[in-house]
């Protein structure tokens, strides 16, 4: 038995059979050729088949990961056809009078080392794209079929790292885990594992990949990052016990699907989900959220090349509202700013983007942009239970201005005889210390508050959340933050309004009970946190004194 330790990227455990991908860099044969013209023709032919393979992969990726994710294969195609790259291959063949495979491997080395020598990590990573396309070209030249490794069920893919084209071509139904020598939490492997809900352990080191063989039994623990190759009986027993435990835990959460979100003493809590686009709707429904507490509408703008039109937005909002069939959907109006760049907004570069020109500030300055979004929202409101909220509020005047623009929109729609719901709740985000401190003044103006803890923490503690050096200072449980939350809840309730939390803190189970005791009415979390939080809420008894921790 061999043990390795890496970094787990998805919490799950499984046992399976090793299937090695690109284990060793195969040695590319080098030999002299008489007929140079023939070698050049072989390269052209191989390039054509490589490109048609990439077309197929592109199509597959489009359905699996969407356009943004698939674009890399378009780039691969263009790289294969790049003049300099083609010329390098041709020159090697002509000058050295060698075989095409060898010429491609030389070009691969020289272009990938060019990228590796660049000074930013993003460009350095492009070296793997050069190697990926070159290997594809060599495979086509040698008429090699990709070594598929083991097949069957319960396959654990083991590799040094996975190239994007490899992750797309894998047969997802037979895979139960990933283990790689390298990779980061943001690598393709990690993203794929999370999407597939299967364990992955990365960063196992060079020794790992040389120690495994196709067909070995392998156990991987995505919680601890442990990997066992050919585990002995004791280890196997322990792993099976852990798998059983994990299954029971997940099963327990399953039983909470369809159950009410209610405390032991009978207080109902609205447990909603945060989403960034229609892509997340499936996950919201699957995890049985009671509604959507935060729809980040800026993603519509970020994914667009130009201002999204009223009709484009209307179609998206309508779809979300219909999918939620009557459950509440809170859509946050555009929260774009200096760190979320959208070219067509033509925003100036700022010294302090977090303290900058963003969200409602831009919307009030550019009423046409704001009105387009509001018209789309109001028009969509008849298809479900819509609430609207404004981000980054610091003053009652901002709220009044936003509300008066809403009134204008209503008048416009009335005059055009276009219908909209007349019970749309309008709320604001409490994410600046200013808005929390004057929440008593703001509460009468709106229907609800939603506390955005990520920004509230950053602004209260003066810790830029993009700066990793500050992570240790940005204590998310800081008393100042918790007091602002409590005060906001009190002010909302004093005016008969409800209050929710939609930031990361909402999914922090160590705070759930404390929030409930503050009287928080709604929690909005990532879809996957809905059931775990429901479990905590259903085990909380607010009639009893808080257990001292």
């Amino acid at each position, binding site marked *: 038995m061999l043990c390795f330790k890496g970094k787990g990227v998805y919490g799950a455990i499984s046992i399976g059979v090793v299937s090695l991908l690109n284990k060793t860099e195969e040695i590319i044969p080098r030999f002299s050729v008489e007929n140079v013209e023939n070698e050049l023709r072989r390269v052209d032919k191989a390039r054509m088949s490589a490109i048609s393979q990439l077309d197929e992969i592109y199509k597959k990726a489009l359905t699996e990961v969407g356009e943004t994710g698939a674009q890399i294969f*378009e*780039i691969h195609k*263009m790289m294969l056809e790049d003049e300099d*790259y083609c010329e390098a291959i041709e020159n090697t063949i002509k000058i050295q009078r060698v075989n095409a495979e060898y010429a491609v491997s030389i070009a691969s080395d020289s272009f990938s080392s*060019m990228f590796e020598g*660049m000074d930013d990590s993003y*460009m350095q990573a492009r070296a793997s794209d*050069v190697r990926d396309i070159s290997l594809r070209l060599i495979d086509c030249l040698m008429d090699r079929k990709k070594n598929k490794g083991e097949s069957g069920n319960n396959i654990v893919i083991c590799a040094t790292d996975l190239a994007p084209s490899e992750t797309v071509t894998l047969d997802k139904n037979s895979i139960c885990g990933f283990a790689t020598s390298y990779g980061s939490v943001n690598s393709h492997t990690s993203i794929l594992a999370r999407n597939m809900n299967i364990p992955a352990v990365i960063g196992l080191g060079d020794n790992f990949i040389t120690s495994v063989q196709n067909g070995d039994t392998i156990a991987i623990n995505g919680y601890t990052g442990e990997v066992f190759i050919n585990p002995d009986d004791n280890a196997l027993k322990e792993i099976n016990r852990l798998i059983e435990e994990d299954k029971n835990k997940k099963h327990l959460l399953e039983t909470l699907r369809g159950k009410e979100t209610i405390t032991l003493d009978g207080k109902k809590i609205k447990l909603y989900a945060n989403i960034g686009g229609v892509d997340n709707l499936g996950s919201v429904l699957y995890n049985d959220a009671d509604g959507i507490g935060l729809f980040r509408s800026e993603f519509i703008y970020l994914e667009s090349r130009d201002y999204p039109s009223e009709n484009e937005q209307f179609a998206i909002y309508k779809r979300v509202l219909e999918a939620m069939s009557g459950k509440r959907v809170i859509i946050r109006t555009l929260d774009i700013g200096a760190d979320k760049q959208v*070219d*067509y907004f033509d925003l100036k570069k700022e010294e302090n983007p977090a303290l900058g020109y963003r969200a409602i500030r831009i919307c009030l300055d550019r009423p046409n942009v704001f009105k387009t979004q509001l018209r789309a929202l109001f028009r969509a409101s008849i298809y479900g239970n819509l609430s609207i909220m404004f981000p980054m509020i610091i003053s009652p005047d901002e709220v009044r201005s936003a509300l008066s623009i809403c009134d204008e929109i209503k008048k416009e729609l009335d005059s055009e005889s276009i219908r909209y719901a007349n019970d749309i709740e309008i709320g604001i985000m409490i994410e600046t210390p200013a808005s929390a401190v004057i929440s008593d003044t703001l509460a009468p103006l709106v229907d609800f508050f939603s506390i955005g803890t990520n920004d509230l923490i950053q602004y209260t503690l003066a810790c830029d959340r993009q700066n990793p050096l500050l992570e240790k200072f940005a204590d998310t449980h800081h008393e100042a933050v918790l007091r602002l939350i409590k005060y906001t809840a009190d002010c909302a309730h004093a005016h008969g309004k409800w209050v929710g939390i939609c930031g990361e803190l909402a999914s922090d189970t160590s705070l759930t009970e404390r929030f409930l005791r503050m009287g928080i009415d709604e929690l909005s979390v990532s879809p996957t946190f809905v059931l775990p939080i429901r479990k905590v809420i259903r085990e909380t008894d607010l009639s009893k004194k808080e257990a001292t921790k």
Partner: protein
Amino acid sequence: MINFSYTIKDKLGIHARPAGMLAKVAKVYKSNIYIEKGEKRALATKIIAIMGMGIHYGDTVTITVDGEDENDASEAIKNFMKENL
């Protein structure tokens, strides 16, 4: 021959995707379109060379367009850069 400069406003600089898109635009025209940054210079149609120039956010590049359709080509490149970079 037409010359103009442009300062990159995209946070990621000319990374893979825009380099690919730029090459696509450049291929439409007969003119030679060069991108220059400091001592480095490359044809806009060459995606690898453009990526290899390491053009970052805030860098100013000079674009030279030379050929029979240089007016149309430089307009197209200008618009492309404004919209995407």
